[in-house]
């Protein structure tokens, strides 16, 4: 009953997928070529928000530092590119690269390791302390990268060219969009398996009652840590894609406001639902773009919308839509 059944509406899912595949063509035909870039950002933030949602929504752990992993993913791409273009190995022995088939897995690995370290310490606490510790770690990393002058410090790292994929012209925005779309599809398919697996089952159980889970013999810590690591890896992947898309990595990617934005996306879309965060990312980015065109105080308007969503939708935009469509 409580299981994630978005995939059980294959018709809706297929329709959305077809629209997304056709989107660049629609954008070209209607002359809104910026639409493709907008959609690419939505996909990337959707991955990041859905990753956060694994711990926040499914696991009930409010992490306020997930931008750290997003930023690490971005910096992995940026740093590897810098060493590639300067032709000097990192630490004297790790060669740089501009190959996406290498940079993405490395970004996922490094952000996973960072999540393991941060999670291992933060998960010894709970509640407000957990929120504060994750925030503190993210801010530590933020200031670390601000002070790293070798990698641009405050100004960040410019990546002159998007990473290469064999056989593809990655200088084309549409190609980048399709690469992101493919990765997003694979990512959500994996996430869908995970949240409905035995692992997902204990994770959701822990959110509902830690005491009950202990009483049936579950050691909570290791499962929460694993969820935190998977979640960090997902954010790292998103960060690496974002650095490729913007051709830029900066400390702003791991600023606490970015963690807040990811959280807002999750809440807007629907906490603890599979596609909610992706919908939330779409709503957030479309709102940001349209509201910012009207007023520079767009965050005020966003605040009111968030207030409405939290108070009246009972579970974000996803829940609102399903209720309007009478599917609940």
């Amino acid at each position: 009953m409580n299981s994630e059944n978005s995939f059980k509406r294959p018709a809706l899912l297929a329709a959305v997928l077809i629209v997304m595949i056709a989107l660049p063509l629609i954008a070209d035909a209607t002359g809104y070529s910026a639409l493709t870039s907008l959609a690419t950002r939505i996909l990337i933030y959707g991955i990041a928000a859905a990753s956060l949602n694994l711990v926040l929504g499914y696991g009930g752990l409010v992490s306020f530092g997930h931008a750290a992993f997003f930023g690490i993913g971005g910096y992995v791409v940026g740093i590897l590119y810098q060493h590639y273009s300067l032709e000097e190995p990192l630490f004297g022995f790790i060669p740089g690269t501009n190959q996406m088939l290498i940079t993405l897995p490395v970004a996922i690995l490094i952000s996973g390791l960072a999540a393991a370290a941060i999670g291992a310490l933060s998960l010894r606490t709970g509640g407000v302390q957990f929120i504060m510790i994750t925030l503190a770690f993210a801010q530590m990393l933020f200031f670390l990268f601000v002070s790293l002058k070798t990698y641009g410090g405050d100004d960040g790292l410019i990546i002159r060219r998007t990473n290469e994929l064999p056989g593809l012209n990655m200088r084309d925005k549409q190609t980048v969009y399709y690469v992101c779309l493919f990765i997003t599809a694979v990512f959500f398919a994996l996430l869908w398996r995970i949240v409905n697996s035995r692992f997902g089952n204990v994770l959701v159980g822990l959110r509902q009652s830690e005491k009950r889970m202990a009483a049936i013999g579950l050691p909570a810590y290791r499962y929460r840590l694993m969820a935190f690591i998977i979640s960090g890896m997902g954010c790292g992947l998103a960060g690496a894609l974002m650095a490729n898309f913007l051709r830029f990595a900066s400390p702003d990617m791991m600023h606490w406001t970015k963690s807040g934005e990811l959280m807002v996306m999750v809440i807007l879309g629907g906490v603890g639902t599979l596609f909610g965060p992706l919908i939330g990312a779409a709503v957030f980015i479309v709102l940001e773009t349209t509201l910012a065109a009207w007023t520079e105080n767009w965050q005020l308007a966003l605040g009111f919308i968030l207030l409405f969503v939290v108070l009246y939708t009972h579970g974000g935009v996803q829940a609102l839509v399903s209720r309007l469509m009478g599917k609940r």
Partner: protein
Amino acid sequence: MAQPILNVRGLVKRFGGLLATDHVDLTVQPGEIHALIGPNGAGKTTLISQLMGELKPNEGTVELAGQSLDALPTARRVGLGLARTFQITCLLPDYTVLDNIALAVQVRQGHSFRFWKNVRSDRSLRDEASTFLTGTGLEPRENELVANLSHGEQKQLELAIALATQPRLLLLDEPMAGLGHAESQQMIKTLRGLKNQVSMLLVEHDMDAVFALADRISVLVYGRVIASGSVDEIRQNPEVRTAYLGEGDELC
């Protein structure tokens, strides 16, 4: 005498100046129902929490079938065959009745670092979970969300989940509390039926239930065991009558 399934020696728990558990010695023999009675605030639930490892005692040792549990966290104790029910029910409200039991079966089967197979179409879990529902009266409610269950049904489910961990010793924290007369009778019947499968430490206020079920009774007052013995010994014990049962009150 056979080795006791539960052996508690010199257990002490202090909360600041309050001595919640005062050098408690307690044994439960295999196959027996040992009832623990005492007035409100005597420290019965605190004792159960220490046996489960949810609270850490200041002194003393707890052994399960000769194996020391002192250094083990709750999860490991459950793995060794200890299970409890909660006085104030503690269930997973967003899950169905069957989900709650299946999760206990899943945890017993081994680690849950399995990321691929859908847990709700896993027949080995669902079928085994169903077997723990038979005879509880919850079968027609197996797909009901726990949040929608009545109090009595939740108590039944507490017991079914505890049994799904296949315990050797069951710690029952007031299983009859809040139940109506018919529900209590049903619970007594269920517990009596379990007697040959599992040993029990029964904390209960309902004296009818205690006298109907218990092989031995221990009386806990202000964290101290003031008497321990057979049902008849406890009924006759003058100290117990003053401290707990109330002097001059007719029993049963």
